[in-house]
């Protein structure tokens, strides 16, 4: 199989600035125009395409970029990412229904609370390594959901209904039956996050995360405050998860704890691994495919999950490092003495 990543990377490295710019700009315009695309091959029979674009596709892209900071960049296995998504959604739910704050005012609070819980979980948990961290984060994801089920103040098992929509923007109305503005807002959030993560990756934090992932002890010998950077990775991932949850809640307008089950964590992790752990662009592509495919084959009804599973297993067999893995040289990681 040809190496898509290397072929793409070579083209990119050799392309002129103008070529790169025009490719990026046309790609972005295409993505913004997607809701207008009425193509029977691409559209999702059985569900509204515009709405599928927002959730699950766009939302999983955003969450995957967030989780990739934790799992892909710094090499920490987090199986409870849904917790931050839930905290963001519940912040929007509670503050949206009980105060006069609007979406834009709640968004930073949601992100802040997700980051705070990221610190509270991360500070003790990140002293653990490997499997232990995975188990603790898995537990955290479940605890958040169970607390939501049992806490009447935030609606218990019935959840929260009547969450307000964001105020109008540029003359567009945010309505449940018109997902376009939500989708455009989400795409903008994705672009912003992607840009921020990229900037960080090529600078000192990115180097520190690379070093930590490859050898934590040696990173410390080089002067990298590894614990601090791990907590930061966790907290930044949490902020993205919280932002996603907040936007999700203001679109779907009512939330129940069941929407924040372990499945979400696992699926987001699958997107990261499937797309190419550590490479944000690959992760985006992975999330698009994994979120889109089940919707595209919804007409299959019963065998849908089975087909999805078979496709997943097949592709992971063909490309064990994911669709678009990170730079090839890192594959030597496990082979050194």
């Amino acid at each position, binding site marked *: 199989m040809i190496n898509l990543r290397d072929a793409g990377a070579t083209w990119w490295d050799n392309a002129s600035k103008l070529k790169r710019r025009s490719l990026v700009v046309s790609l972005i315009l295409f993505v913004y125009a997607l809701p207008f695309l009425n193509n029977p091959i691409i559209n999702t029979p059985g569900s509204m395409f515009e709405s599928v674009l927002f959730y699950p596709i766009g939302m999983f892209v955003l969450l995957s970029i967030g989780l990739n900071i934790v799992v892909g960049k710094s090499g920490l296995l987090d199986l409870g990412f849904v917790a931050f998504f839930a905290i963001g959604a519940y912040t929007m739910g509670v503050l949206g229904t009980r105060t006069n704050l609007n979406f834009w005012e709640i968004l930073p609070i949601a992100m802040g609370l997700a980051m705070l819980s990221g610190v509270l979980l991360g500070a003790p948990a990140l002293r653990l390594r490997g499997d232990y961290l995975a188990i603790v984060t898995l537990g955290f994801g479940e605890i958040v959901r169970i607390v939501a089920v049992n806490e009447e103040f935030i609606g218990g098992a019935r959840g929260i209904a009547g969450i307000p929509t964001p105020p109008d923007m540029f003359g567009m109305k945010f309505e449940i039956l018109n997902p376009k503005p939500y989708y455009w807002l989400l795409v903008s959030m994705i672009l912003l996050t992607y840009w921020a993560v990229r900037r960080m990756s090529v600078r000192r934090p990115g180097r520190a995360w690379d070093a930590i992932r*490859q050898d934590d*002890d040696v990173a410390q*010998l*080089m002067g990298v405050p590894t614990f601090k950077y791990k907590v930061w990775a966790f907290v930044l991932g949490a902020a993205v998860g919280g932002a996603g949850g907040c936007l999700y809640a203001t679109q779907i307008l009512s939330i129940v704890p069941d929407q924040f089950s372990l499945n979400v964590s696992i699926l987001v992790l699958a997107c990261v691994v499937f797309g190419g752990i550590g490479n944000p662009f690959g992760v985006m592509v992975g999330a698009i495919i994994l979120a889109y495919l089940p919707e595209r084959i919804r007409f299959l009804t019963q065998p849908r999950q089975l087909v999805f599973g078979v496709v997943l297993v097949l592709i992971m067999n063909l490309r064990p490092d994911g669709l678009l893995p990170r730079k090839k040289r890192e594959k030597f990681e496990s082979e050194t*003495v």
Partner: protein
Amino acid sequence: MRLEIKNLSVYYGKIEALKGISLVVNQGEIVTLIGANGAGKTTTLKTISGLRPVTSGEIVFDGVNINQIPAYERADLGISQAPEGRGIFPGMTVLENLEMGKYNRKTRKAEMSEDLARVYELFPRLKERATQAGGTLSGGEQQMLAIGRALMARPKVLLLDEPSMGLAPMMIQNIFNIITEINNQGVTILLVEQNAQQALSRAHRAYVLEIGKITKEAKAKDLLNDPHVKSAYLGTGAHEIF
């Protein structure tokens, strides 16, 4: 520069790996710590660089007790280590590995090109391979990279953990020549080795470590002729390890 270890004890859980060892490294010296597999050599270096916590005793660097200083700040104090097994970042290029060597230095930008030139002069091979991934280097090249990377931090004392491990005889000779050269340039070195022959013929002073205890301290040249050291570390016994 003066590194002094006083009565140092270090545990792994209930196992006492270091049982109250004391040693001194003075400015300009090569001091070697020799001992068999499992004696506690790596534990000693890891504790000096802060990767293992001290159970009791003191690590004093330039007159200051550094027991509580985290590992990532010790590099900036002037303690640099080329760890056991070399610890190359396999996914980073040679150049990126070298740049990591001064990650935490505030003056890193100003010093970078000068220090790179210095390392490349010591190890011309690294310059040729600057853009190659660390993981693809041979064992000897990785050891050069590990030492070069440690030098990037402008150490006052350089800790070397078995630099000869797993290398061909020619390469071992080469590495030890460079170690002597680095010392001649003014860098103090604490060298941990199982290859006692080489270590003792290069070092000024030596300590013998046996199951967590220092059993001998002497001029390195004298230990080369010490009957106990000869039978335990120099004769046939030393070669069985390989």
